[in-house]
């Protein structure tokens, strides 16, 4: 479904991705791990085609179509959606307005909000203004559920979320991804308790250092941290 080949990207003159190869087949859910600054979020903005991401080489294909130079909104129309880690605040633009645009009247927004534990009075609030860390994550996920992309990317949906809400979010994402494909970025892996992932990838220095069974990789990293990865020959080679 998503196939990235040898993708090298610069943002503001700094190389953030150095030849990424990644394939997520249809119906699969992959997990992307990696320490801060390893290039996870840059990979997402590159998949979305934000103008700040200058592609030096490589290409991105989605369902067979080369989307490497396509504008963001056209990629989204093809079926890519992202729940962001740090969404910007937009004064005067209401959550409800965006939700209504996304559902186009086909889904009951209020019901949907219930599944992410977002009260209806949030609809009248300015986008991402005065939301707590957990509320930010939940409204991002809510927007993605309303958008219904075939391929959904979640950027750290579990960081800053309390235990009760983690379960709510985890179940909502799992239910949503049942008939879809996705890429899940997580720092601490908490969300994986609720989601059945097919494969995990570890990013280092703007590249995929290793890929494998999610449980194996996560357990190691949880126990020993990314310091352990740094000693791995695969990572050392990338350096």
């Amino acid at each position, binding site marked *: 479904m998503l196939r990235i080949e040898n993708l090298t990207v610069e943002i503001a003159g700094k190389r953030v991705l150095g030849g990424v190869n990644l394939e997520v087949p249809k119906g699969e859910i992959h997990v992307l791990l990696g320490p801060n600054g390893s290039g996870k979020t840059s990979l997402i903005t590159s998949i979305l085609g934000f103008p700040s991401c200058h592609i030096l080489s490589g290409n991105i294909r989605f369902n067979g179509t080369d989307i490497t130079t396509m504008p963001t909104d056209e990629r989204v129309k093809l079926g890519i959606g992202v729940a962001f880690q740090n969404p910007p605040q937009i004064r005067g633009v209401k959550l409800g307005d965006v939700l209504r*645009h996304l559902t186009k009247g086909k889904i009951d927004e209020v019901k949907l909000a219930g599944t992410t534990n977002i009260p209806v009075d949030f609809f009248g609030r300015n986008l991402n203004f005065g939301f707590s860390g957990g509320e930010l994550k939940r409204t991002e996920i809510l927007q993605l559920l309303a958008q219904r992309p075939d391929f959904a990317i979640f950027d750290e949906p579990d960081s800053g979320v309390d235990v009760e809400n983690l379960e709510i979010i985890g179940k909502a994402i799992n239910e949503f991804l049942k008939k879809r494909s996705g890429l899940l970025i997580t720092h601490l892996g908490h969300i994986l308790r609720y989601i059945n992932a097919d494969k995990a990838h570890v990013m280092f220095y703007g590249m995929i250092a290793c890929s494998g069974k999610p449980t194996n990789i996560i357990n190691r990293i949880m126990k020993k941290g990314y310091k352990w990865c740094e000693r791995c020959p695969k990572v050392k080679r990338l350096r």
Partner: protein
Amino acid sequence: MPKGKKTTLNTIEKPATFGPDLDVGAFKRETSPWPPCTISTLPQDIIQRALSVGITKEKERAGTYFQIDHSAVLQAIRKTFRGKAEIMSTEEAIKKYHWAKDYWWKIVDANTDKFTTLAKSKWDQGYFIRVLEGQKITVPLQACLFISTENFNQNVHNLIIAEPNSEAQIITGCTVHPNVQNGLHVGISEFYVKKNAKLTFTMIHNWSQNFNVRPRTAALVDDDATFINNYMCMKPVKSLQMYPVAYCKGVNSRVRFNTILHGDQNSHLDVGSKVVLQGKGSRGEIIARAIASDNAQINARGLLVGEHEDSKAHLECRGLLLSDEASIHAIPELVGKVKGTELSHEAAVGKIAEEQVQYLMARGFSESEAESLIIRGFMDISIFGLPDALKRDIKRMIDVTIGGAL
């Protein structure tokens, strides 16, 4: 407050402190009078322009004043509201009520500049609106000041009195005939909001590219009284300069100025609001939103003066630049004269944040949809605390303007 002084001849030469100077003698003073009529019998193009500034059929308002050039063509209060509010030309009010003189040129000084001097020496009526004691009127009153003659100079003087314990909304629309390009409108407005009264005043302007506008406004707010002043100008004008002031004289008096400006083409807007906190527990708030496109120049001013130790006010000014040739100069000022007064401001001027556009595009909005959503959001009036019907009307006008202009 200004002390009463005699108008002297030399003030007719005195330029205003702000805004481009004008030769007030360059405009026509003579025109043919209009006969009295109702709104529905006015020519269709006048009705349409009036509608663009919030002026609608008489039956949708508690009372209506309509002035074209020098002529007060309509001054009527609906039957249900008789004995609750009065609406008439100020010329008639001065004749009818000997006490009206006590409110006349009392908080605006006729010697301020050439425009106030002009309005005193060549006065063309204006509206008198009085909400009677204890009357709470939920349906708005409206006044329209219309110019139908090319290169004309109209000088109105309005007097608005909210008697104790009263409550009302007033919508004023000022505009010109579509054929009018040049001209000068000077408007003196004196507001008296008495004890425990609440007045929501909304003024909407829609001028033309070569038109000049110089309102001079002051409000006196008594104990426990609230004055809310909304101002909106979304269409081109050659030059508009105004700096209305509200004196929070009473104990627990409240003042709020909400301003929405959209400068486009070659518009020069120099618009601000002043709040002077004089009473114990007085509070003030100024919120301004300015959008500049094309070659527009906007000076967005604001001044808070704290004269009482138990007083508090905040000023918020945001400017959005939509063109590299446009400019917005935000000039927020705070003057604390006693300890204990709390004054604060925040001002921000910038263009549309790229990050916001990208975020919305990632939600499937096109680039232009995203920008339009952000601009509409910037003009969000829900923070102004307006009555629902008025909020809907203004929102509709903003949507029409943004939809057409951007």
